[in-house]
């Protein structure tokens, strides 16, 4: 129970950067993103992804576009923007140093 609570709180803080990291490899449509995040245990269902995408879109971190080239109904692809890329770089730096500090502390406390 405690583990789940800690994991939930940590995921909340990093989820949007995980989305940016996934999109930094190329654009993806909503369900593709959702499935990837669900498989990694970062979200429970698609219902958590679209609200997050709404905020990221509002803040100019991601950009959607319709793609009607396939056979079925048009898909909505999301791509990372320049601002999104900057945010991801900044996060990567913070995460690397933070993770190192936390790891060192945890090593020391064992």
């Amino acid at each position: 129970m405690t583990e789940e609570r800690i994991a939930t709180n940590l995921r909340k803080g990093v989820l949007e950067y995980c989305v940016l990291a996934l999109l930094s490899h190329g654009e993806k449509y909503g369900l593709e993103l959702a499935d990837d995040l669900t498989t990694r245990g970062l979200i429970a269902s698609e219902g958590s992804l679209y609200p997050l995408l709404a905020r990221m879109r509002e803040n100019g971190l991601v950009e959607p576009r319709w793609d009607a080239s396939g056979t079925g109904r048009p898909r909505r692809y999301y791509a990372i923007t320049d601002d999104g890329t900057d945010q991801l770089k900044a996060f990567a730096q913070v995460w690397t140093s933070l993770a190192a500090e936390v790891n060192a502390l945890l090593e020391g406390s064992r």
Partner: protein
Amino acid sequence: MTEETTTTEKTTMNEGTTMPEETEMNASIERAYLRDAGKRLKALTPEQRDAVLDDVRAHFAEAADAGRSPEQAAEGLGDPATFTERVRAELGHEPGRTDRMWRILQWLATGVAVFTAMFVTYLLPDTRGDEFDEPGFEIVLLHLVPALIAVLPILVPARARRIATMAAAIVLTVVSFAVFENMYDLYFFLPSAMLTWAALIVPVIARNGRPAAGWRITAGVLTALPASLALVGGLAGSWDVTVEVVLYTVAFLLLGVLIALGKSWAGIVLAAVGVALVIESTLSPGLLVLGVWWAGGLLLTVGVSHALACARPRKTARA
């Protein structure tokens, strides 16, 4: 991540169901979801709402391509209430919005009740030419009871708030029409009752954004009501129909139309007119003092309620 295989498995058709019927059923699940979600996202700007609904449309299409049924697609999103709650939370709306409406209206009801108490205790008997003695302490206290009733919902714990607001609205309405030992002055507390009813109703009808057209039209009609009644009174011969009366009526009708159209600033104008009417009737109470007072209270209530309910959503500040 590897590109997901987009198998186009056909879902098993029920016996007796033809393909077009099934397609129609699938489309109706999606339409129902979009309609419900759209209604619940009215607090967002049209651009924000359209973008979220586009995500939902795309989700149903992508889920169908992946061989999932519309039921499964809807299940993945969660029920529309929860889904839209998450969207609003992410975009920095709620849950404080409706709470703020209630709080402002309830404090206003309390403030108006205190003002009314002062008016009926000190100013009214004086200007009416009653035999005026310094009012006794018990009279002052008695006149402050409605203010105590109005403030009560603010003081109770949050879980008892709605029931306390409802109780306060009922009690204030009854008190406003009650006559205790020739104390007709209690009629003046009706505006406090109106504001308390508004505190109960407005947060509910505006919880998903701008209230539905029916509510806005009702507010528009109430806006034009006092001026229209004045005009009718004039036409019936109770007083002269001056150019001023006609112009006021036309102005209120226009304001009523703007309110019905959902312009929030029209509510602020209306509330200011309401306050002006109440103050006017306080300073020079004539024969129609109660009528003007009630009209002022009504316009203040409708104006503030409308301005709060139709206020443009705040843009998110979260980055």
